[in-house]
């Protein structure tokens, strides 16, 4: 199992906003462009900790995402 989780976001603005609200809550993450996609410029957020907490924060801020990989991080 991966030691990280990956979320797909539909635009760079979404990815940056997600990253910003997560970082404000002390959750480390990084943004990159999704390589394996045919959906245009999808950006991914890689999380190394607190995956469940991160999801609840993103839902609170109404930021849409798709879980691409769910790692073993808690």
């Amino acid at each position: 199992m991966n030691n990280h989780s990956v979320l797909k976001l539909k635009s760079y603005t979404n990815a940056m906003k997600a990253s910003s609200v997560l970082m404000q809550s002390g959750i480390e993450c990084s943004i990159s462009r999704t390589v394996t996609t045919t959906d245009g410029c999808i950006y991914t957020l890689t999380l190394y900790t607190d995956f469940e907490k991160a999801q609840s924060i993103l839902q609170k801020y109404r930021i849409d995402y798709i879980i691409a990989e769910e790692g073993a991080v808690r």
Partner: protein
Amino acid sequence: MMKNIINFDNAATTFPKPESVKNAVLYAIENCGGNAGRGGHALSMKSSELVYQTRTVISSFFDTEPENVIFCSSCTHALNTAIKGFVRRDMHVVTSSLEHNSVLRTLVAMKKEKNISISVVEVSADDSVTIDSFRRAITDKTGAVICTIASNVTGQLLPIREISEICRRKNICLIADGAQACGHIPISLKKYGINILCTSGHKGLYGISGTGLLVSDGKYNIKPFMHGGTGSVSTSPVQPDFMPDSLESGTLNIPGIFSVKAGIEFVANTGIEKINLFEENLANEFINRLKKIPDVIIYRSDSAHYLPVVSFNLKNIPSEQLSSYLDKKGFCLRAGLHCSPIAHEMLKTQTGTVRFSPSVFNSAVEVKNLCYSIKNATYTIEKI
């Protein structure tokens, strides 16, 4: 920089620009060569990061969320995006008698194309009269109030908070033209109750020409009138339905956007109240000196509130002629109708006025010298 030219036409475009704005443009040109929001290579990611940083600075400045900031090419572009994207067929809209053509012409075009009806509220020097007129103009069919925060001709401020309160109670969208007001008064979308704010980036926000902003509180859906590449959801032939992508087709103006960030930071760091007070002092100095010149007409009322913008004329001297005379003396002031014929109709100045609009880079000495030239004009220019 051009020597011996004093710009008092800052209501059109502030000039000169702060050093930080010049540096920001240069930085963007030298370092941000990629398309923002498209691609994952270093140049693209750098541009994307810079654009997002700017969104956060602007959203914080106007008290909204970063995704609700739309980059446009001018305030006119922003107003067209807001008006054409929100106002629906057969809708009734209310506007004011102090509007710029960017609002007026757009509404008139929509009247023809979408059968909308328009009520133009006469702005009074007495705010309570203006508020009452807006209240009476609103009907059950009214979907939007579209008005300026301050006149670009006289600088008169509209009672926008009270107008927004009327809109809020009746669930009407308030689209505000902040071209003159932004950078002079602190505007919080939440505190002012403005749903959609449109502004230029190159006036009081000190960015470069070719920049404008649409800033929304996210309450009302704005349909795009322009479609195309956004970098997102590219497999779909349909425009994305989420902000900011829905309203930002095409490559963004990265140097312009970064200049607006630097300009807003300049305004915020200098202090918006401090800037306005400084410019107000210059405007008052100008008015006091003007009043001593014979045959001067100043288009202000004691009971109204104004930004530091002054419209004036010399009796029997056409505004364009006075402006041309002052230009030869090294002073840039805008004459004519200022793209706001209905405001001039209200002022009964159909042949226009001369407009004085200082910036933070002007001085009291420059105002004194300008007034000296205006005084000389009264006996140098042949009267009609």
